[in-house]
């Protein structure tokens, strides 16, 4: 279980008058993520998702607040190495060692997690098969396509059998086929018992994968719930119409209610099932970041 309590992160920055000021990236974030859960952090660019994941993975120190993994605090130096052994990270940027081959990149990672030679060999072979990259073990990472690199990042993060996996925008800029394959991989992992925390600004990804979703905006947590609950809370159907240049919409619990409402409108409108994107817009009041 991961517990996040009153997490805050600020960065120094230059304001418009070129004076040093404090920029709040994450403000008063509290969350609990259960074992075996696929938990999504959803938000537009700049919402604080990556900053949150960097603090959770100890790449960035919180300004204040606490992060606790199964009772172990990351602020406690004695616990840090044990926590690091528990977690695997798939970063947003493709941070491979450019001078090593695919196999060597995986071996380096396995060595960093203190795996012995026989275990390393078996695990690398198993994972390359898992992400369907067996044929490129001796190729340089520069030679791989974008989708292959993303799958390799996942394989690398899984080498040491982490109990908790962090995926930071794992399908960004990928075509739909590769995105689907990565989603399948994530589902497989969760079925095998891993806890998965995924950040995304793709609504569809959160809806498809996550057991629960936290919606963030401008560094703050807006709400946490299951995608289904979010939808049923606001209404399963949405009526959409245009007023001048603005898109207007309203939620309804049943299709009949929505139809009745359309009949009362003086303009043309459409009716459809509501989705997480509608919820996100309703909760954050903005669409430009999506």
């Amino acid at each position, binding site marked *: 279980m991961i517990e996040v309590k009153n997490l805050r992160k600020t960065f120094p920055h230059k304001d418009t008058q070129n004076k040093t000021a404090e920029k709040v990236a994450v403000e008063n974030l509290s969350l609990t993520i259960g074992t075996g859960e696929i938990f999504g952090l959803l938000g537009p660019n700049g919402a604080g998702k990556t900053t949150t994941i960097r603090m959770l993975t100890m790449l960035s120190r919180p300004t204040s607040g606490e992060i606790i993994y199964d009772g172990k605090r990351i602020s406690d130096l004695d616990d840090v190495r044990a926590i690091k052994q528990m977690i695997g990270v798939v970063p947003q940027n493709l941070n491979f060692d450019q001078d090593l081959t695919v196999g060597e990149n995986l071996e380096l990672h396995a060595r*960093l*997690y203190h795996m012995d030679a026989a275990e390393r060999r078996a695990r690398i072979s198993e994972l390359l098969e898992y992400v369907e990259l067996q044929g490129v073990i001796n190729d340089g990472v520069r030679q791989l396509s974008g989708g292959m690199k993303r799958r390799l990042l996942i394989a690398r993060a899984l080498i040491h059998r982490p109990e908790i996996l962090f995926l930071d925008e794992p399908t960004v800029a990928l075509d739909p086929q590769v995105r689907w394959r990565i989603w399948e991989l994530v589902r497989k992992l969760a079925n095998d018992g891993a806890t998965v925390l995924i950040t995304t600004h793709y609504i569809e990804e959160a809806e498809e994968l996550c057991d629960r979703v936290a919606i963030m905006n401008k560094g703050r947590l807006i709400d946490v719930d299951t995608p289904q609950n979010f939808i049923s809370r606001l209404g399963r159907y949405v009526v959409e119409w245009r007023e001048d240049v603005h898109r207007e919409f309203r939620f309804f619990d049943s299709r009949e209610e929505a139809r009745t409402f359309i009949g009362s409108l003086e303009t043309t409108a459409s009716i459809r099932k509501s989705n997480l994107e509608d919820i996100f817009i309703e909760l954050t009041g903005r669409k430009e970041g999506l």
Partner: protein
Amino acid sequence: MLQDIWTVFWRDWVVLKHRMTAFIISRMVAPLLYLVAFGWGLGRSIQTASGASYIDFLVPGILALNSMNISFNSVTPVHAERVYHKSIEEYIIAPIRPYAYVIGKVLAAVLRGMISSAIILVLAFAFGAHFTITPLFLLVLILNCAIFAEIGFAAAMFLSTYEQMGQVNTYILLPMSFLCGTFFSTRALPDALRVFIECLPLTHTSYLLRGLSSGSEVSLWSVAILLLYLVIVFFIGGNAFVKLRQ
């Protein structure tokens, strides 16, 4: 800790193995030019104070400056790993001790520096230079490699841009290459500059290597000063890496 150091060293060893031939050939160019230009060319018209040939005077200086340059530049890719590729984050996330990363990187740079020094020694013998290699001679060479690898590591931790890394080469290493008793004695320098130059580690390495290779007496204070540099710069770079992890 030892296992973590070995892992970091292993990575650099794998990269070096991929490029060993290119590395060896490229390391021969600069010393060959120094030996031809300053040893054969200019050196024939130079008489040293001790009466020894200039090439015998020159070889320890070339060893000192070359091991400095190679060790420093062997660690500078850490800067790109930190600033551009972000691959350093893999080490930050991993359950290894921060100083294991620093030591592993420094040891790998020492290896490169020593391979490069071995190439110079072979070339110097081929050019007819006379010198003796003792265990202390090798220790001084290793110390020099380690100090400049640590300086390279610290620079990689503190500097933000690739251009700034280049400026360390231009404003620090290049002047040291010529002024720290490598090509001529520091006694030829004006007093104020000489005092400053004689505080620098490369000057102590040059004098130690020259003295040891010719069988002359050397000051063990110079070894102590090199050790002091080794410890101080190690903690400066190491501390910067620890802060990066935090």
